[in-house]
């Protein structure tokens, strides 16, 4: 550099200044023009859900697996009033989120409302709504993947027997990370741990089975199979009913008795008839034997007809 003549240095410096200024111009054109909204820019959202509203409310189910930055957006199409501004707010599980009330300006015949939520855990799941001044709202229901078939009838098993409670997450839905089983009611659930003599849990990727061994009446109740995802657990209730062998025994014996009675009646009827007939038949036999003798005396025709019958 020290050996360069002064003119070269000047040229180099000019070049440097030029490139620097070009870079700055590029940087300026690349930078996004900030939107005229008060919320965080949508760039940092991992997931975006949009509801387009006109005059009716809308509901959307959002399936979540992991913690996520979720951007929820509502676009209300302006009606004939064409107000320049309307107010709107966000609510979570029916309660208004504090400091979420905004005034939305009319843009391209639409009122556009957007908010970024960070859903970190199961307690953040639920129903989120954007509510506009004129009453129109959009609901977003955030939940883990639901179970397809929910069994409404209880599983029935017997005392001292075992039962296998199955649970399945369909192919179409995402695979859970793991499976857990619970017992209890809606408010308080207790996790079931594997005890070799009482409970056995066998889980595959999409299926899980709880085997309850050596059943007693206390084992009856609702069991919950939980498909565990990073963000939360989906519960599937299965009711178990435990009965003793005496329960089906009653209809069994009832029907057995009915069969025995019917068979007895039929046979008795038949015996009585044949007794009547043997006594009557003896009288008839005497008559018929007389007729027989008379007929045999008639000859050839009788013989040929007897031959036909014997064939």
């Amino acid at each position, binding site marked *: 550099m020290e050996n360069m003549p002064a003119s070269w240095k000047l040229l180099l410096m000019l070049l440097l200044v030029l490139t620097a200024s070009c870079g700055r111009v590029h940087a300026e054109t690349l930078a996004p023009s900030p939107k005229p909204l008060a919320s965080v820019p949508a760039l940092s959202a991992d997931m975006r859900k949009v509801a387009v509203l006109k005059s009716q409310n809308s509901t959307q189910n959002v399936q979540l697996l992991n913690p996520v930055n979720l951007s929820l957006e509502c676009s209300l199409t302006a009606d004939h009033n064409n107000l320049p501004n309307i107010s709107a707010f966000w609510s979570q599980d029916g309660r208004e989120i504090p400091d979420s009330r905004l005034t939305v300006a009319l843009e391209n015949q639409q009122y556009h409302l957007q908010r970024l939520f960070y859903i970190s855990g199961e307690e953040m799941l639920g129903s989120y709504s954007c509510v506009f001044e004129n009453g129109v709202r959009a609901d977003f229901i955030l939940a883990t993947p639901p179970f397809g078939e929910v069994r409404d009838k209880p599983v029935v098993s017997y005392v001292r027997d075992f039962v296998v409670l199955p649970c399945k997450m369909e192919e179409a839905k995402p695979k859970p990370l793991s499976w857990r089983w619970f017992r209890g009611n809606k408010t308080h659930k207790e996790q079931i741990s594997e005890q070799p003599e009482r409970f056995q849990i066998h889980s595959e990727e999409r299926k899980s089975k709880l085997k309850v061994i050596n059943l007693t009446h206390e084992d009856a109740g609702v069991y919950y199979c939980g498909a565990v995802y990073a963000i939360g657990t989906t519960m599937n209730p299965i009711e178990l009913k435990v009965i003793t062998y005496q329960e089906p025994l009653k209809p069994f014996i009832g029907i057995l008795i009915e069969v025995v009675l019917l068979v007895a009646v039929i046979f008795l009827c038949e015996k009585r008839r044949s007794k009547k007939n043997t006594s*009557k038949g003896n009288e008839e036999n005497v008559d018929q034997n007389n007729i027989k003798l008379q007929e045999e005396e008639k000859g050839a025709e009788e013989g040929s007809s007897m031959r036909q019958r014997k064939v």
Partner: protein
Amino acid sequence: MPPAAATNLAHKPPDGGWGWAVVVAAFISIGFSYAFPKSLTIYFKEIQEYFSVSYSEIAWLSSVMLASMYAGGPVSSILVNRYGSRPVVMLGGLMVSAAMVLSSFGTTIIHLYLCVGVIGGFGLAFNLQPALTIIGTYFQAKRPLANGLAMTGSPVFLSILAPLNQFLFDSYGWRGSFLILGSVVFNCCVAGALMRPVSNQKPKGCLPPSNEAVDQGAVADAGPQTADSDPEEGQHEGKGQTQNSKLVDLTLFKHRGFLIYLVGNVVMFFGFFAPVVFLAPYAKHQGIDEYSAAFLLTIFALVDMFIRPFTGFLGNTRRIRPKIQYFFSFAVSYNGICHLLFPLASGYQGLVVYAVFFGVGFGMVSALLFEVLMDLVGAPRFSSAVGLVTIIECGPVLLGPPISGALVDTFGEYKYLYSTCGVLMLTPGIFFFVMHYFNYKKLEDEQKQKAAGEMRRPEETVELKSNNEANK
């Protein structure tokens, strides 16, 4: 003109009276035999979970039961030939009942295979054959109607057993349900009790007195043969009926009509049941929801239920009865055409139309299936015939649905399955038409020869008599 193998029975079939009670009994037996294995499929899912087995292993239960039912045919025939229908049916009822009760305590799937599958299957075989046989002994003139009515047992019982099984399952789980089903199926013994051997029958007692005069006349006609109304004598008559067959009548394989029936039926059975099995899956494949698909089967069963007695009635009419083999050929061909045209059906309406038409075809063939066999071989040999037929049909019946399933899996499309079934039904149908045309012709020739032969003998005796008198 009825074929030569008519009633070679030692008595005149009553064609009424207690016969209708026997039809009710046969209705019950046939109903249980066909509907019971099908209705057990409701329990399969839970049993599969309980024993931790795969779906194909549990499906084997149905196959074992069906195979036992068909394999038990010849055994059943032998027993019926020796002891008559009643003891065999009661034994069968006892067997199925015991099988279900034992299986309700089962600890492995093999236990179920043996109890429900083998013993249960045999028990049902002991119900089916005798029920069909006894109709042949009680009816001649009204036999197609009686057969049609008795075969109606199958769809009726299926319609009753399916919801009953669902209810039992929801209330008692599979073990309790099997126990209760054991007692339900024990009602086969009631059916057996009703199957009074026909020569025992005298018209009084439990029947209203108005029948007396009519049946007295019938009794007097058969007077010389059944002079003693002693029940023991009646049983001897029962044994004597099938005097030409000790065990199983293998001479049937030389019988022209029997061979025609056998060959046609073996081909037909490959494609007979598969369309029923795949109707609901095909509907779901077309995008129809589960309830509407199930409703298709209900429509099919309802149509089947009403068509069977109606077909029996038609078969009895004066025009059709002599040529009832043609009626059967028509029924089989109609099924074939139905299946061939099925791929043209589109949408749910098309499926409903198909279900109705198929129901008609299925009902017609079922109602006539055993009637035509009786018509061909005659009532005394029917027991052996049906035993032989069922054991030979065992193959197609068992192989049909899995082969069809394989067809569906290979092509991914159901229409090839239905086209194949259509061909498998249409070919025997045409075969029957052609062969029976020749068979009827031959039978007519034989009848003429026989009649000519008999004409000569009275003439000879008249000549002899006149010679004797001349000589005197």
